[in-house]
Every structure is written in C-alpha cells, then in structure tokens.
C-alpha cells in the first residue's frame, strides 16, 4: 500500500524516537529506494526527530541514555544516507573533531558531547583524551572539520586549550573552535580566541549547528 510521503517520513521519525536503530536504517533504505531526496529524509525525518529529542531532553522528559540511544538510531539512518549525500550536491552536514586537551584524562563530558553531536547529524572524529595540540592540528589537516571541540576539566590543562587554539590559528585553520568543560566559561573562550563555549552537550550541538549554518539551527 502506498502510504503518503509524510506518513513514511513520520515512521522514520518514530523509529528514532523509539531508539530503533535497525528499523530507522531499514526505513531510510526503503525511502531512498523510492527516490525520495536525501536532504528531505535527513531534514524532515532524522534531524526533526533529533530536534524533538533535544527539546524533550531540555525539558527533563528524556534522560541521557535515552537521548544517546535515539542519537544512535539517528546515526544508523544517517549512515545509509551519507554515501548518497556526498554523491549529490546536498548540503554536507558538517564534521567535528573533538578531544580532551593535553594532560587531561576526563572524558565523560566530552563523550556526551560527541555522542550528541552524532545525534545532531554531524560526523564526529573523536581523538580521545590527553590530546596534544599537534594531534589536533594533524586531525584538522586530515579531516578539514567545520568545528573543532576542545574539552578540559582541570584548571591545570586549560592553558593547553590556549596552546591548541594558537597552534591551529597559527597554521591558518579557519574553521570554528569551541571549548567546554566544568572550569571553562564564555569569558575564557573569548580570551583564548576560541569562537564559542557551551555549558552542556545540547548547547554544544546547537552551537555547532549554528557555526555550520544548518538551516534549522
């Protein structure tokens, strides 16, 4: 039975909200097979679902692991689209390189931000913890990310954020840099020449999408 497009996109949206990665991927596959535009599936089903997830999380209705499971389902759908998206002239979703700065091993917050970014449709390259500036640099050159996210939880390692920013700017990296972590704030971000700060994971995703210029951000 030929349901209408809206109903089918809703089904993808529902699969994400039900954390069903397999079903989300399968429905996206069927939809592309029907010839529906990738950009439409992405925007109207997958990203729309994650926006809803973000809202529900902000309102305290959805909990962290639920949000992350939804993000996984979103990512499963996105993986189906990714090769098709790059083959067409569809607007790329954006890439972020993220890591915890040199000498800092705290990664719970960074991981949360990374997983949420994936849920927000970004391609995430996670460099892990204790990442020296030159590894950020190498990743910047290799992946040409739209955004680089630096995390630090120790006041002792905050200077390594500055070093990383200096080094990236020094070689002419012209994407955006955002910083975060418990002792970090907007004033510090500005002082070290980063482009922005977010206090939590949903805020980080919003900021990244603003940087990338996602239409719906």
């Amino acid at each position, binding site marked *: 039975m030929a349901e209408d497009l809206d109903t089918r996109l809703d089904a993808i949206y529902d699969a994400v909200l039900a954390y069903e990665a397999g079903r989300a991927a399968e429905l996206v596959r069927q939809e592309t097979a029907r010839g529906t535009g990738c950009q439409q599936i992405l925007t109207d089903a997958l990203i729309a679902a994650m926006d809803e997830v973000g809202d529900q999380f902000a309102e*305290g209705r959805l*909990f*962290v*692991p639920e949000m992350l499971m939804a993000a996984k389902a979103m990512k499963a759908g996105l993986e189906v689209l990714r090769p098709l998206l790059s083959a067409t002239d569809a607007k790329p979703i954006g890439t972020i390189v993220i890591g915890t700065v040199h*000498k800092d*091993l705290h990664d*719970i*917050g960074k991981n*949360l931000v990374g997983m949420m970014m994936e849920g927000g449709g970004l391609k995430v390259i996670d460099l892990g913890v204790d990442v020296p500036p030159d590894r950020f640099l190498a990743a910047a050159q290799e992946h040409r990310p739209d955004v680089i996210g630096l995390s630090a939880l*120790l*006041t*002792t*390692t*905050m*200077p390594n954020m500055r070093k990383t920013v200096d080094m990236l700017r020094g070689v002419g990296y012209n994407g955006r840099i955002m910083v975060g972590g*418990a*002792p970090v704030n907007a004033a510090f971000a500005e002082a070290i020449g980063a482009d922005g700060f977010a206090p*939590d*994971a949903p805020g980080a995703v919003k900021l990244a999408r603003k940087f990338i210029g996602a239409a719906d951000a």
Partner: protein
Amino acid sequence: MRARAVALLDRHGVAVNHPQAVERLRAAGCRVDAGDKRVRIPAELTTEAVAAAPRSITLCGKDPRHDLRLPRADGTFWMRTGTGAHGFIEPHTSAYRKLVLDDVRTIATLADTLSEVGFIAHPFVNGVPEVTADVHGLGTLLAYSTKHNWIQPYGTENIAYLLRLAALTAGGEAALRARPIVSCIVCSFTPLEFKTMDVEALIQCARLGVPIHACSLPTAGGTAPVTMPGTVLMAVAEILAMVVLAHVLGPGTPVIATPLIFCLDMRSGRSLQSSVEALAGASMAVQVMKRGFGLPTHTYGAGSDTPDIDGQSQAERALIAFLVGLAGADVLGGVGQLECATVFSPVQAVIDNELGAMARNYLRTAAIDDESLAWDDLLKLDPGGNFLATEHTLRHCRTGFAPAAFTRQARDAYEAAGRRDLAAQARDMLDGILRAHPARPVVDAATEAEMRRVIAGADAKIAG
C-alpha cells in the same frame, strides 16, 4: 560484595601505567601477560595485603595538639576541608569569583579554628602558574595552618616538590617520617586503571612514611555501572587494589580507604556528589571498607550540588554528614564545598562545622545505666514533680549540644534582630574568627624563605 571485589581483581585485574610497579606486582605473585599493563591480583595477595594494612593511623598536626587518631577514640569522625575548588564565594556579597592564594590563607586560618575540622586540603589556586597551583596551594597551607594538611598533586613532577615542602615544614625527612604532618590522595583512574602519577605518588609517600588516602571516584552511569551496588563494587575493588599496591611497593604504608561516589544525573548529564544514590553508595562503600575489611575510611561528609549557600545545600550536607557518619566513616570530607566540589565558601565551612558537631553528638550514644536513666530520681519522684533543678540535671545540663550558628530565638527576638538566618549568623562568626586570628605564618622566616625557593624551583622546572 567483599568476595566479588576480591574476585574482580583476580579475574579482571587492574591496568597499572607504571612498568616498575607492574614488575614488582608480578614478583609478588600477580599474573601479568608479557608486555601488558593489566595486572591480575590473586585473591590470596589481596587478603594478605588487607590483613597487613594498619588498622589505626595517626595524622599528625604541625601542632601535636592537632594530632588525629583514626579511628577516633569516641567512635565518631574528623572533618576535612574541600579540595580542588577553583571558585570562591565571597562571604559578604555572596558573589562568585576565582579562588586565589589569599583565599588559601583564609581557609588555613579559618579551618585551624574550626573544632570539627581535623585537617586541611588545598583548593585550586588561580593567579599562579596553573601547572604548579598545587605546590603554591600546599606551600601556603603548610605555612599558615597548625593542623595536618592533605596533598592533592596535579602532576607527576609536582609530587617531589610537594613532599619537599612537607619535609621542610616538618624539619627534615626523618622528622616527617616520625610525624607525618601531611597525607596524600592517590586516585584510581576508574574503571580499574591507575595513572603513572598516582602510582608514583604512592611510591614516594611510602618512602617517607606519608599516609595515603586510597581514593576511588567512580561516576555511576559514566565510568561505573548506573546501579549503585555495581558502582560500589568498582570503588571497593579499586581501593583494595591500592591496598595491594601499597603492600607491595611500600609495606606498612598507612592506607585510608576513600570512596568518593559520584552519579551522572540521568536527566541533565551533570556530575552529582549529593544525590540520594551517591549518598547511599558512599554509605555502602564505607561500610564494606570499614566493617568488612577493617580499614579506616574517608568519604564526603559535606558538600552539595547547588552553586549557592542555600536551603538545598544545608539539607544535602546534613543528610550526608549523618548518613556517612552512621555508616562509620572516620573522615568526613568536603567542608565548605559547593557545586559538586568545584567551589569553596568559608561561610558554608562555618555551618558545616556546626553540622558536623551535631552529627558527632548524635553518634555518641549515651550509655544506658542508672545515671543516664536517672533511676534514683525516678524512684524518688513526687506527684507533680519536675527535673528542673535536681542535682542530676545540674550534673548533665552542659552535656547537650549548644549550637552557635543555629537560632533558637522566639519570634519577637527574631524579628527584632532583623530575621537573621543561618548564613547571616555564620557570616558573623566567620568575621569574628578572622578578626581574632589574622593570617600569620606558623613557620619561621628561614623555613618560609626556603619554601619559597622550592616553589620558585617548581615554577621554573614545571611551569618554565
């Protein structure tokens, strides 16, 4: 829980990022695959290490009147100030700002006078090179307080400088060994791993006879299982691993079991130290380490997740103090700390001192005998009689707890005084304390100058 913790170390083991330590653990009977850092600890070794660990520990004050014996003779606890805070709440304006070296002097002087605070930890100091902030913080604490101090190193290279400062203050390494005026935190890197820095701290402390606080900070739902028993198991296993490390690398080193249990708030993703689950976990872990393994214990016994000295803060810290006190903790940490261990408030520290005193009085349960039952008076009681002016009441009228910050005013007096609340009262007490005790170095000028040289050396070498 005890059996599972020992089994986890035996079957899963811990990763130790310190090749020499791994070698010595292997020599002591641990199973290590070639080229691997994963150390599986046989149950017998854990049992042996626990049996050999000191049951009672003395943390010496610079002034011997401030020596602390753990467990405390009356069966209660000592408190210690919060560590690692980078923010400071101004006593009078309640404004938040970065914590600076001057604030460490305030903390040192204040904590020296607080009756329940046994020892003092250094917060994070802004305005000095970040990477040597621990050296600056400890230097100031050592120079301005007469109580025992707690070291929290921020880097492997810093450990030697921190211990050198302690030895200088104590009057040399032998004097430090004889009277350890400092103790040091050694942390696991949850889950089930140990960083180079912490193993190195353990080795260097053991060499000088400096007691260690074997600290595990699992985050339920983050680095540890979301269900509290699983998180407690993680903490217990990691602390036992540190007992084994101490036994192998520095036999006889005093080890204080220090579970600091955190929760990841499933709704916001924030780190919490005072959620109901975190409190239940801390109480559980303390009971396992203390009653189950017989070791002295230390956990948060103050502290709140709210950023301010508000009602939530008082409720959370009262709950913690009583719960972990009842569980048997020997040291209650976190005096003055707010916003999940990132902020220090001296006003809150004054209130914490009072809450701690209350909890201790509560825990010192009265013996049940003829005197406490007032048996003779009861037998002699006339109809319509009372206890207002009996010899028995006179004998005991001062044994009840007399709060200094809590109000017991009636409405009229309360209104007349301008409805002053607990924080206002604590603020006045703080002002009084700081007026009466201006920050003054407790070490002689030559020692202070030598300490300054050590700190400058650390700056040049580490911050260089």
